[in-house]
């Protein structure tokens, strides 16, 4: 009993540590009886309780009645900003985005260029030039974008002003259920805190499936800056109400047309989107501050939509946008790193905490009331552009040749992957279903975000990725360099590269000399093209062994970075823990052609001592929107003339 009191007294003091150390949290849970946990701890939200998914919950039945398929995708990530995903927005956020919300004020507050980059990649990457939606942080930028590029934007509020505050606990029942415990007078702050979250980790399933890991009573962990489900619902309702209001206007507009016939100019969007995207791609550097990112990233990220593949989740069309999807299979078994799978299949059983108590106003019951919903053929989420183009084009494939030792470059066997279980179902929507792995202690938590990657060390051999639809010679790789030694389970027990299963073929001397000459020439050209990067400083993990070498290979080029160079000019710490390596920055590399190119990555010299994770690969395509300023003005004027007509 004394142990429990000890925990009870000290947990509030060390609450911050709980957020940082889930291991400690697990231990505390094991030591503390459930009733005490309920008393002292604050819980986490279910993924479906986040405000982005509350928007989907509210709007989906309304849109479904109107024959529109709707989803909201929550791609928020803990401990990170948005830039790592925004750099490849068209693939990670998707190409069918109508409204793009930015809510990263805490992690990118001092990174206004990053926020500008988010907006521009979002506008250029989506096929739809989405409406931007943000909070106060965007006050300075968005009006400029609208003035110079006709960008549509909104500013959201928190909606807490009219919410009644609890001054007397006995009057709580007088407040509508949804508005309770959102605001409390100072003397009753604890009351609001107690009712801040509402979650559960496990509900018995009718199929009697039992998780192998003991489940917590409720999702654990807390952070003072995180909102509970009630606040998230208010946020979600304010945003969905705004969309509903515009939806009403749209329907009313149609209803008021003579003979219900709409003029094309009232509802067509092609020229409307093109006008916005063309202007955004050709914005002057003086507009916004995206170009201030030049000391960390090339300014092309402000102009050209980049393609990307990643193991971060969630992401759009995860089965098509993973790094594994572009990895070249290794060995005779055509091996590609495989992630864990969920331990049970969708769907989860009904979770009552996601609904409303009996007798309260039930939004879904009211809105869904009526005849059965009809099915219809809805436009599918468009595939990544590289996949779409690959099916219709005959792009030349630039294959890898030989490495710096003159050996043929073949896919290595020692690559692994660390990500959510069943990551192909991690698309960030209400119905996503990933992370139900056997080691999870809260299977109904349902959150999608995970900083995954394909893992490799010096015994892994080459990892080869095929980048399709490369038109401008720009390739960047985001990797994590700080991971612990021996963190790659695939090479456990290995003592040599690929576990010695196959030796790479040596070329003859003529080939080697030819390769070396080409290699040297190409490196020199590439090195002269790009700005130097800021070094990663004061990172204790950035100590590499003496023989360390990180190599990138593409075409007949090998970039070899030794211990002193790996965090040198080609490396950029774009944000906290966002490390980017420039592999290729030569816009005319393809001479205007669209090519597919193989990119090889490997470590050598340190056995299992250093483990890298490849988390993102970005590459550029030529944007048709990027035209000369004079032509841009002509195009814009012509489009506006058509639209006004």
């Amino acid at each position, binding site marked *: 009993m004394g142990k429990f009191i000890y925990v009870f007294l000290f947990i509030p003091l060390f609450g911050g540590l709980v957020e940082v150390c889930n291991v400690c949290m697990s231990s505390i849970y094991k030591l503390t009886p459930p009733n005490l946990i309920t008393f002292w701890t604050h819980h*986490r*939200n279910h*993924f479906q309780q986040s405000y982005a998914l509350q*928007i989907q919950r509210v709007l989906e039945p309304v*849109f479904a009645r109107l024959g529109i398929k709707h989803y909201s*995708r929550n791609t928020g990530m*803990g401990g990170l900003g948005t830039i790592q995903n925004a750099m490849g927005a068209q693939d990670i956020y998707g190409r069918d985005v109508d*409204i*793009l*919300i930015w*809510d*990263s004020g805490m992690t990118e507050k001092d990174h206004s260029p990053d926020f500008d980059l988010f907006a521009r990649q979002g506008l250029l990457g989506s*096929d*739809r030039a989405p*409406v931007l939606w943000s909070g106060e942080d965007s006050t300075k930028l968005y009006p400029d974008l609208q003035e110079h590029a006709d960008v*549509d934007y*909104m500013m959201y*509020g928190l*909606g807490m*002003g*009219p919410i009644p505050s609890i001054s007397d606990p006995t009057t709580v029942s007088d*407040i509508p259920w949804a*508005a309770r415990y959102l605001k409390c007078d100072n003397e009753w702050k604890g009351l609001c805190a107690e009712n801040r979250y509402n*979650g559960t980790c496990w509900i018995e399933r*009718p199929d009697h*499936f039992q998780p192998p890991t003991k489940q917590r009573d409720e999702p654990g962990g807390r*952070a003072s800056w*995180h909102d509970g489900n009630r606040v998230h619902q208010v946020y979600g309702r*304010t945003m969905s*109400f705004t969309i509903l*209001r*515009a939806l*009403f*206007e*749209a*329907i009313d507009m149609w209803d008021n047309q003579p003979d219900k016939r*709409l*003029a094309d100019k009232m*509802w067509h969007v*092609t020229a409307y989107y093109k006008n916005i995207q063309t202007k955004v791609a050709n914005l002057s550097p003086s507009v916004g501050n995206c170009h201030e990112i030049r000391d960390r990233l090339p300014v092309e990220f402000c102009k050209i939509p980049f393609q990307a593949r990643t193991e971060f989740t969630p992401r*759009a069309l995860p089965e098509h946008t993973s790094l594994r999807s572009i990895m070249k299979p290794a060995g005779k078994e055509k091996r590609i790193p495989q992630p864990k799978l969920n331990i*049970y299949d*969708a*769907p989860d*059983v009904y979770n009552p905490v996601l609904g409303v108590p009996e007798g309260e106003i039930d*939004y*879904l019951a*009211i*809105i*869904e*009331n*009526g*005849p059965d*919903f*009809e*099915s219809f*053929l*809805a*436009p*599918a989420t468009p595939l990544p552009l590289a996949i779409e183009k690959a099916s219709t084009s005959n792009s030349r494939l630039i294959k890898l040749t030989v490495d710096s030792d003159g050996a043929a470059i073949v896919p290595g066997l020692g690559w692994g992957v660390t990500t959510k279980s069943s990551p192909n179902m991690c698309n960030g929507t209400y119905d996503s279903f990933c992370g139900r792995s056997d080691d999870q202690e809260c299977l109904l938590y349902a959150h999608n975000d995970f900083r995954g990657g394909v893992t490799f060390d010096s015994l892994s051999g080459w990892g080869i990725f095929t980048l399709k639809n490369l038109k401008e010679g720009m390739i960047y790789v985001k990797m994590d360099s700080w991971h612990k030694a021996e963190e790659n389970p695939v090479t456990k027990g290995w003592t040599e590269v690929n576990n010695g299963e196959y030796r790479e073929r040596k070329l003859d001397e003529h080939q080697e000399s030819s390769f070396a000459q080409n290699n040297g020439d190409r490196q020199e050209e590439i090195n002269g093209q790009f700005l130097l990067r800021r070094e990663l400083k004061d990172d204790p993990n950035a100590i590499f062994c003496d023989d360390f070498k990180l190599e990138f290979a593409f075409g007949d080029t090998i970039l070899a970075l030794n211990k002193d160079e790996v965090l040198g000019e080609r490396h950029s710490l774009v944000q906290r823990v966002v490390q980017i390596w420039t592999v290729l920055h030569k816009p005319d590399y393809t001479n205007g052609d669209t090519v597919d190119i193989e990119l090889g990555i490997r470590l050598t010299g340190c056995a299992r001592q250093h483990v890298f994770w490849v988390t993102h690969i970005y590459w550029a395509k030529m944007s048709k929107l990027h035209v000369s300023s004079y032509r841009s003005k002509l195009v814009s004027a012509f489009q506006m003339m058509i639209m006004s007509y």
Partner: protein
Amino acid sequence: MRKVLTATTTTRMIELPSSTYSSNNKNNKTYSDQIDGLEDFESYQDDFDDDAGEYVVSTNAVRSQYIRPRDYRTRRLFAAVKYGCLLGMLMLMMVVVVGALLWSNANANANADNSSSNDGDNHYNLDDKNQLKAASDVTRKPIPDNTLPPKSEITRIPIPDSISGAPIEVAVPTTPTTPTTTPENNESVEHPDELHSKATYEDEKLSQQTVEPAKATAPPITTVPLSIDEISPTNNATTATPTPTPTATAQIVPNGDKWYEDDPGKIWYEDEPPEDEEEEQIDEEEQEIQQEMEAMMGNGNTMNSGSEGAEEEHGTTTAGESAATTTTMPKNTDTTTETENQQDTVDEEPTFWFEGDNEDDHASLHQEEEEENDNGSSLLVPSDTEMQDPVMDMTGDVHSKRTLYRYQSRQEKPLSPTKNQELHDTWGSWTFVDRNTTTRPTYVYLCPLLNCNCKKKVSVIGKFSYNRFLFSLFFGHHRDDYCGAYPNRDIPWEKFPRGAWQTDVDYLTDYLQQSKELVMRAMEVHLAEYGFGPDDLPEDSFLDRAYQSPFRLDILDKPPYDDDERRLTAGVNQYAGWITTKSFNGLVRRLLHAIVSRDSFNVVLGGHSAAAGHG
């Protein structure tokens, strides 16, 4: 400064509209309902514990919290139908294979016995090269020799090799503006198999054709509108007993003088009617299908007469609008009128002539057309531009970009009828049902079991699910996506096919009203959830309540650059925020576009842990 929300419904109680579309009768299940039930069954078929007599939550389904017994029984029924269909299909395939073998054998004998006089026939549907190839290769039934016309009486249209041995050949006039027939140059039709194996022969014949140039003194030519039926296998019997009709000639408008040189692999469209005529014909067929389906199912789901009238009216308008490029033949017109119409078209566009001196044959075709297909479609083909119309060329590419979607409730279980009625009495409910779902435009036709002119793009069925394919065997068609072929689904308004719901005024009158009520109802529930509903503030209007609520949205003419001004005018943190008028209009445009074009509408959030929803 504030934009006024023009709400037409400000009370909580929303009256049910007295529309002919509206219905609460769930027994009137639509075609899509039936299909959906079958598709759902795949996910749940293993979820019923027969021993325990209970339902277990599926581990295979994507999302569902509750399974209703009614659905289960329906799914059992559909499962029986499905596997019955499967068995039937297998048997049908066996019959086809056996028939093909027999026919192949008979054909080989015929070729051996009468190789010099084996003329074959040209009665094939050229609108589907796959079908034509299949017919020539496998499934075509043997035609008795006595039904085949003499070789010298039927003209062939040369088809590029890529069309898989198309058996018809047409003369190519060097000056096609005022074409004429040259009976002496007609080539007889060979058997399709023979033609298929003689690609080089086709090329030779094409080069040997001699077409007389247009002459001012050429005798007037009477043209007869021909439909696709005229060259379909179903007309073989008529061909065998032709009725003489002098000067009967079909007219074909080419894609230009070099149609086959520019794109040899292009599918031969010349035998297809123009877009509008084809749509009319398709609609006729749809109605036939619908009638047959109703007769078969006996569900009493009759057509809405008012809607039909509206469709016809609209169809007439469409045809009239497109008269500049195509000619629509009126119903049961006499030959003179047809000739005039054809000649009008001849004056406008270069033409090819279907040269055939077998007058009896054409007359019989004409008669067959009048009997079976009185929609007046002609053999005029669209102009070059029209043939590139993506709506007409929207096969696999479009289908692959769509998915079948159906909203499924996120509630634990359906409410009781009593509770639903309570909610309906208090808040209103959605009651709109489109009873013309099965007659909406489509381009996919599959109805071999009903013998209803199976003639359209059979190949696209592979894009659909297995269950939809099975149902298509009975019910004949899929709804199709006429918006998807345009960039961003921006279909021009005049390109909506006849019968599209977007142009059905009767439909829209009720649909838009109910849509507004639905959206207003959703907003009212938002307000009521937080204490700003009509019961909470009975004296205030909807707009007043919305303005007091957390959902107050300020629509500003210009953005407030000054922070103080922003806080003063909008109170960002206290209410729902603000938006500029231009942006609001942009949002409205996007939503309107989504409604009209049946597009998706998606919201994506990028942010940090608090936005992700971590606690």
